[in-house]
């Protein structure tokens, strides 16, 4: 019997102590309240497009109703390649334009320019307007002229001279001879707020060394970048 009583005492004491400590601790807990901050980020969109009725050429093949029309060609002769109406106002070649929504997102992202039945020193000018249809401002960053053989020529605000003034000579079929000259009226670095637009022009002049009866192609990738990081992709010019 004695042994049992002695055994009960040591077990009961720790239990008592634990209860006391627990009650004291609860009574001394600091006051606090958790405030929640829920963060939801609705990101904007950087997007731009071509639009119908804002794409023009100096020598159209068709009118607005898609009917063939007679329109005098333009020529540009060396050495200065000033564009003039072709001798006798002759209509031999023409420039077709087409807008494409290549990714099906509802806006035109591709402009097809097709020069038909053209000949040395035929010159065409294509003027088009680009629209910021995103939700954040953008800046016109660069163009990449991409040949079918993979050659890429890149121009930005930092190096526009060749493509803007001197003309970029292109060998499109890899035969070692230049086929066309391309000039770009750039608007590099121009900032477009949402809804704003900018005009850009493209000139193409056919050279004597272009092959006859040929289909030649090149692509121009026109890139815009978020306005606030423009300086990170285009080195800024010093004074």
């Amino acid at each position, binding site marked *: 019997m004695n042994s049992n009583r002695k055994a009960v005492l040591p077990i009961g004491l720790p239990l008592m102590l634990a209860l006391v400590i627990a009650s004291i601790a609860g009574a001394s807990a600091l006051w606090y309240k958790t405030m929640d901050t829920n963060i939801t980020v609705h990101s904007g969109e950087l997007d731009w497009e071509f639009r119908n009725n804002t794409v023009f050429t100096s020598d159209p093949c068709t009118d607005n109703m898609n009917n063939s029309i007679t329109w005098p060609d333009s020529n540009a002769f060396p050495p200065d390649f000033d564009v003039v109406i072709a001798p006798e106002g002759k209509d031999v070649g023409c420039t077709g334009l087409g807008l494409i929504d290549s990714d099906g997102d509802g806006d035109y992202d*591709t402009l097809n320019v097709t020069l038909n039945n053209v000949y040395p020193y035929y010159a065409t000018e*294509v003027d088009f307007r680009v629209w910021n249809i995103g939700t954040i401002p953008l800046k016109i960053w660069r163009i990449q002229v991409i040949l079918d053989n993979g050659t890429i020529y890149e121009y930005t605000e930092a190096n526009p001279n060749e493509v803007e003034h001197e003309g970029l000579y292109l060998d499109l079929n890899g035969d070692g001879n230049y086929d066309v000259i391309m000039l770009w009226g750039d608007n590099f670095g121009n900032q477009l707020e949402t809804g704003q637009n900018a005009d850009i022009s493209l000139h193409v002049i056919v050279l004597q060394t272009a092959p*006859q009866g040929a289909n030649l192609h090149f692509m121009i990738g026109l890139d815009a970048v978020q306005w606030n990081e423009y300086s990170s992709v285009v080195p800024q010019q010093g004074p």
Partner: protein
Amino acid sequence: MNTNKKLGAAVPLLLLAVLAVGMFGGAMALWWERLNVNVNVNTGTLDAQLSVEGSGDNEEALAVQAGEPDPTVKDVSNITCTLADDANSIDIVINNAYPGVTYYCNINLENTGTIPFKVYGTPTLEGNITTVMTSDSGFQNGTIVNGLQMHPGDVVYDTLAITLTNSAQENSVYTGHLNITVEQWNEFPTAPPS
């Protein structure tokens, strides 16, 4: 053993680091958007072809003028005009020719290209035949001349005539050639490359 253990621990760490850098890099790409301008240049063609409309001589006519009862017996010489397969040249051969007879070949020139052209330079005969032909030999109608403009599909016709003078030698061979050069209309009269 220790080395292996260290390597074993390092490999997953490196992988994690690479993944982290990759995700970080992806997250850091600035936003940009591309528009494309595709430029297709379909060049035209400058092309011309010749054809032979006919040929002959005036032997019988001369015989009639001379009162020959049977003028056909005077038809002793002849001319042939043969178009080459590429339609770019015509071989003209006059057999048993003699002075005073006019031999002719009626020639068509057609623009078979897709852009207009102009004739560069008035075509003239060259070669030693010119030393034994009359001054009125050559094209007779004055149509194929310097600056003649032809649009795609246009055809012009002219007669090339050759009359030998008395200075022609018997049993001799005289040769000549005549070039017709055409060039794109918008660069006329720039000389084509030689």
